[in-house]
């Protein structure tokens, strides 16, 4: 491993990253030479027009997709050259993800959904259950652990999804419009949960269309023409 420095290295870094998609009318260059560093412990909020490439960027950041060109460092390690199976290991061990559409297993209870975080890990069942319960406590749903998620409100479901993402403490928590499907009140509860995780020291990368949420950010990036630009908040 690299020597730990007090001036901590970025949890995520991109150098000259391009992402293009082939289409019948030639390749579309969605990300065009992106350079970026995310410091540990930061709460980064990304905004930008629809179709500007925010989700594309998040997919690269969460190692769900590989760049067409350029280098990505994750937690001090070059990941853009890893094989598919090696990426799976990094994903399950170090990343937390929250999606706009919750992605819960509707037939299972809240705690079973959170425990699904450990489905592809070798964590012993008892430990997985204990950590999942802690995560549910953290998002304020500790008392509803055994409730089937299909009987929960949208805000509660998203908080279950967040608990799942952090049941194993991630190096980076990535969220693509997690409040996009929620009303104001539920969105507020979800944001407070993120705020709490941020205070716990988790680094957060967060995409939204809602400018109101910028007040939670420690850093605001705007996605434009395939690049991310810093905007003083």
């Amino acid at each position, binding site marked *: 491993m690299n020597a730990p420095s007090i001036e901590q290295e970025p949890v995520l870094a991109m150098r000259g990253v391009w992402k293009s998609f082939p289409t019948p009318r030639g390749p579309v260059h969605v990300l065009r030479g992106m350079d970026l560093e995310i410091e540990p412990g930061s709460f980064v909020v990304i905004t930008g027009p629809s179709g500007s490439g925010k*989700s594309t960027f998040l997919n690269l950041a969460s190692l769900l*997709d590989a760049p067409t060109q350029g280098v990505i460092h994750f937690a001090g390690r070059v990941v853009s050259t890893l094989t*598919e199976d090696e990426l*799976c290991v990094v*994903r399950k061990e170090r990343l937390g993800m929250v*999606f706009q559409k919750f*992605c819960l297993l509707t037939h299972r209870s809240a705690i079973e959904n959170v425990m699904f975080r450990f489905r592809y890990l*070798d964590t012993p069942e008892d430990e997985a259950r204990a950590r999942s319960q802690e995560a549910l406590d953290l998002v304020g749903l500790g008392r509803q652990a055994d409730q089937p998620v299909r009987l929960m409100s949208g805000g509660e479901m998203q908080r279950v999804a967040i608990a799942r993402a952090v049941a194993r403490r991630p190096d980076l928590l990535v969220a693509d419009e997690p409040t996009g499907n929620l009303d104001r009140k539920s969105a507020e509860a979800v944001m407070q949960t993120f705020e709490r995780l941020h205070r716990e020291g988790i680094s957060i990368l967060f995409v939204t269309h809602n400018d109101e949420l910028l007040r939670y950010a420690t850093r605001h990036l705007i996605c434009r023409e395939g690049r991310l630009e810093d905007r003083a908040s």
Partner: protein
Amino acid sequence: MNRRLRAALRDIFDDVRARPGRAGLSFLALGVGMTALTVLLAVLGGLQERSRQILEELGAQVFAVTQAPPEDSPRDASRLRPHHVDYLRANLAGGAVSGIRMYDVAGPDERTIRVMATDGSLLDIRPWRLLEGRFLDAQDLAQRDRVAVATQRLSDDYGWRVGATAILRDTPFRIVGILALGSGALESETTESALLPSERTFFVPATLPPYWRPSRTMPEATLDALYVRAPAALPLETAVEQVRSLLTQPDQFVGDLSFITPEVLLQRLRKLQDTIRFTAGSIALLCLVLGGTTLMSLLVANVRERVTEIGLRRALGATQADIAGLFVLEAVLLTGIAAIVGAGGTGLVLALARDQFPVPLRLDVVVLVTPLFVATLLGAAFSFWPARAAARISPAEALRNE
């Protein structure tokens, strides 16, 4: 490992619960297919076993020569007679020949006993087993002793042990041997009475006068059938042809003969086998193909419906192999359970209804395990493409917002 397996089973259980109709339909089709397959295997195996038994009970290289009853052939001169036995013995080196004549006689309790007048060489030809004592011998025939060999059934029914005296139609016979007959396989495949001394048969020397006849006249010197064991080196068909040509020589005057070889007996069985193989076979094949394709469409639809879930799994660290394995395991489990239920249930029903079944059945490990094997193969084969498709779904696209 154990925990992983449990998690996988849980995943499959959830999926089946989420789409019970679809899973039920392919389960049903597969179950019916497995049932048909089990019946097919059990019946074909049973018929094969019966063919083997028939060959065994008739004896290797053995055939019978019978003649239509005299009503149909009025020319009395053309009947089979005892001297034909000697004639064939003299001309068929290395073989064995025995003649029989049969009478149905009322026993002590008025039930019919079949009396079979024959000689000692019968036991060299038909592979019956002596349980006790001896069979008829040359001395018995020469001295016209009133001795008899009884079947086990007769011995049990009337307490006729070796040394005991059996009274038949007021005439005493000394029992010298007890004989075990076959399993009845021959009996079920032919109505040729010459081939099947019934379970209640009483063997007596061919030279005895027919005491059991009300008139007690001397027997007409004719035979009901001849048994021939061909010489070991001679193909059976050649031996049959030899005997046929010997008996139809102008100086022998024998007409209306039928030659009953194992081939003749097995013909009906073979026809049955072919019919069953064709009907049950096509039903089994149809059901299995139907089951396989419904299974495949179930899986294809599942993959399509579960794209987001697949994306989630990939996000949580599932590899492509994990995803493919999920669908293959689900398919194999479904077909496997269908096989266990279908084959096991069918096996149980067949075992219970065995006696009512018109054909013999083979029910053993092979018949029950083969469907399971076929099912596993089927599950793996039909889930291959859907599983591959699922594994190839890009996680980024699977998780895109619609």
